[in-house]
């Protein structure tokens, strides 16, 4: 069990560019979550899927952020027109049933 795998581990984008973050959940886990972590805001919930279906995206900035889970083995978080305030560690997690396991995160830096 390799755990939740996130790629890339680090990404630097220029302001206004698009960033796509990838997540491979633990096999057999039915729920996949995306969180964002910053020093100021801490751990913020973004969105989550259960059995590939979007359940709750209440934490997603609606205009530029989108998430998909096209199959049970991966999910993507896409940020369009990145802004400096999007700089953060983006954490993907999966769970079955209640315990949540986090990936190592993608550190996004927008310059």
């Amino acid at each position, binding site marked *: 069990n390799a755990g939740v795998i996130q790629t890339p581990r680090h990404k630097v984008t220029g302001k206004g560019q698009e960033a796509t973050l990838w997540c491979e959940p633990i096999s057999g886990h039915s*729920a996949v*979550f995306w*969180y964002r972590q910053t020093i100021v*805001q*801490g*751990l913020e*919930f973004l969105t*989550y899927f*259960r059995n590939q279906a979007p*359940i*709750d995206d209440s934490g997603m900035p609606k205009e530029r952020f989108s998430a998909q889970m096209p199959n049970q083995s991966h999910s993507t978080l896409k940020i369009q027109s990145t802004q400096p305030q999007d700089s953060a560690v983006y*954490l993907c997690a999966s*769970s079955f049933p*209640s*315990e*949540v*396991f*986090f*990936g*190592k*995160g993608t550190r996004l830096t927008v310059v």
Partner: protein
Amino acid sequence: QQQVRQSPQSLTVWEGETAILNCSYEDSTFDYFPWYHQFPGESPALLIAIRPVSNKKEDGRFTIFFNKREKKFSLHIADSQPGDSATYFCAADSGGSNAKLTFGKGTKLSVKS
């Protein structure tokens, strides 16, 4: 809306002392309360969790005390060790099939030897 409040923001204790980390919540539907720890450069990992059917959960040196009436819960780390130095997050969710964790802002614990 901050639904889970955590204090203190940082805490320093000496080796062997008991560290006490506190959290409170607002949403009465919350029924699962885990604590995560995070070491520098690592992702959060589950440490211990409680459901409100009980008011205490122990796992080795780690104990959660839960007060449903006051909507508070705390993590006690007995005989603190330098290796316990990390950031600790409390969290809560309402369980069920649509569970999602709401985290506190974390307590940075330093254990001095």
